[in-house]
């Protein structure tokens, strides 16, 4: 969404315009839910946190400054809520299967083999993401899945762009190594971090 359009929408939201809210809601609700779902690895929690994110938008809209980008603001709120939720949970592991990934949408084009291969790749990526620690997972989600630039993702995570890029590189290499290990029977690591240097973040 272009910055001028966002600014106009924020002005309308501040005036209590429901149609402006609907535009923002439709633009971001699916992406935010997917982000929260993968970050928390729990659909019910993601639903709750998504609702809380939207309620914060409408109740704190006056605190938004003109230069604030809506996407960054919404993802940052969702991210902070998700981390609070993860910190409050003792049993922070749910398998990727619990996410019930949606049926893969298939064009008429690809062959059945391509479809199965793509679905298999998706499943492996989801499992790899789900097995990572939340700090590494979030950067892959923001940049890889949601197409943010590392600089935009740094705003969401509250770190410097350099720190974000380093974390992204580390997370990306861990996931790549984990996927490679999955290809060889008997060399399966429990988590992508077992394939890389485990460093504690936050």
């Amino acid at each position, binding site marked *: 969404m272009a910055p001028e359009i966002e600014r106009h929408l924020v002005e309308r939201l501040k005036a209590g315009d429901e149609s402006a809210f609907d535009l923002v809601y439709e633009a971001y609700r699916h992406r935010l*839910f997917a982000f929260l779902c993968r970050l928390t690895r729990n659909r019910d929690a993601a639903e709750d946190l998504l609702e809380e994110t939207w309620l914060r938008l409408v109740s704190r809209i006056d605190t938004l400054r003109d230069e604030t980008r809506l996407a960054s603001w919404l993802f940052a709120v969702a991210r902070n809520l998700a981390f609070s939720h993860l910190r409050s949970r003792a049993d922070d592991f749910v398998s990727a299967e619990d996410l019930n990934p949606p049926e893969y949408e298939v064009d008429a084009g690809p062959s059945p083999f391509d479809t199965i291969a793509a679905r298999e790749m998706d499943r492996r990526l989801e499992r790899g993401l789900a097995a990572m620690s939340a700090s590494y997972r979030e950067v892959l989600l923001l940049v890889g899945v949601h197409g943010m630039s590392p600089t935009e993702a740094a705003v969401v995570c509250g770190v410097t762009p350099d720190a974000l890029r380093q974390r992204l590189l580390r997370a990306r290499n861990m996931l790549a190594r984990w996927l490679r290990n999955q290809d060889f029977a008997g060399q399966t690591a429990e988590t992508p971090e077992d394939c890389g240097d485990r460093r504690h973040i936050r």
Partner: protein
Amino acid sequence: MTDDTFDDDPLLADLSRLSDPGADARRAERTRARCHRILAHRRRERRAWLVPLRRWTQVLEAAFVSALALFFLEGAIQRALVLLGR
């Protein structure tokens, strides 16, 4: 390392093709309705604050116009008296 470093990364490209899990449609509608109610409340509060403000603006506007009119009227009377030689 810059933002462009990751532009052509095949693994990140694979991640970008992951399909989104669908949210519960009924819950989404409930959330939308809740947010609409909060926005409607905000609008009403805003209006409630604007009504007296608008009334005061009208009063001040009328007072200002009257003061200007009196000022010009006084000027006109003085000029007329000068012209009549009094």
